[in-house]
């Protein structure tokens, strides 16, 4: 049975979001799932379960461009630096060495001007 959706919260009650656009500089192409695992692992290692729960961290799947290796992380407005710190602590994905580069931080996906 399909789950009923909740009514959307009013804007004043909603958490204010920030979108962080980043690029992965690497020797070989990186897949979405590898990157997602790496971000979560780094975040959990550095901030712990409690710390990462406050950041509302999420890697937006449909905005990840595997060709250009550009992705978007969604977080709440108070935890932008936490999210960037998580991302910057990724040094390797398996045997592939990576360097994350922050491109832009914005309140809307449109504001990132990815295209």
């Amino acid at each position, binding site marked *: 049975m399909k789950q009923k959706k909740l009514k959307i919260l009013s804007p004043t009650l909603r958490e204010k979001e920030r979108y962080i656009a980043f690029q992965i*500089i690497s020797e070989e192409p990186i897949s979405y799932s590898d990157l997602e695992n790496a971000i979560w692992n780094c975040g959990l*290692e*550095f901030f712990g379960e409690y710390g990462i729960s406050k950041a509302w961290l999420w890697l937006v799947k449909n905005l990840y461009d595997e060709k250009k290796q550009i992705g978007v992380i969604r977080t709440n407005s108070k935890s*932008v*630096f*936490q999210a*960037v*710190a998580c*991302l*910057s*602590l990724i*040094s390797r994905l398996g045997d592939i*060495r*990576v*360097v*994350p*580069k*922050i491109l832009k931080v914005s309140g809307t996906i449109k504001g990132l001007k990815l295209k």
Partner: protein
Amino acid sequence: MNFFDFHVHSVFSGGESNIEELASMAKTLGFKGFCFTAYPLDRKEEEILKTEIEKVKKEFGIEIFLGFEARNLKELRNLARRRKEFDVLLVRGGEIELNREACETPEVDILTHPELGRQDSGLNHTLVKLAAKNFTAIEINFREIMFTTKRTRALVLKNIQQNVRIAKKYKVPLIICSGAINHFEMRDPYSLISIGCQLGLELKEAKEAVSKVPQEIIKRISEKRNKNWVMPGVKIIK
């Protein structure tokens, strides 16, 4: 804003990347310049390094400074004696005697990772006061955080936070560097700033640690390169 990374190693100092790779990565990440850190070399190797740096500087259009990192007291005293011949003098912290000598010596620009391999933070109020007097910047090393895990990382973070707290109290310049040994370990300025924010720095202070403090050091470098400069606090006026 101009950003600088003042602690990057290469093949000349136990690293894995050459100067071209480091320069190209620094430019991609948005740095205005970086300090190429080497361990003391003999005169011949030093000349080769200097010519290579000049060549890469022109090729990539990025500022590259030559810095030497002293690993013990003997190296520190030797380097302090010929301070005019290179740009930045760094001291590899960790040992308490070396930390003290680095804070006491006005020729020293940066004391790198004072808490390296220690249970304590490697600095106390006396050393920090000396560092403030001599404008010796204390480094927050990103690599040390990146490549430690679990209990060791917790200890490193605790010690860095302690150093940040004391440094802020006595107004000692703090500098955030990547400490990279290859070009894949370099991080962009925004990442360095965000790590600084996690370690007890305000946003403004973290930004200063990546841009203003390195610029102050560069200003002092040009002063030291002046013919009239004799030693810290002494220069020929007429």
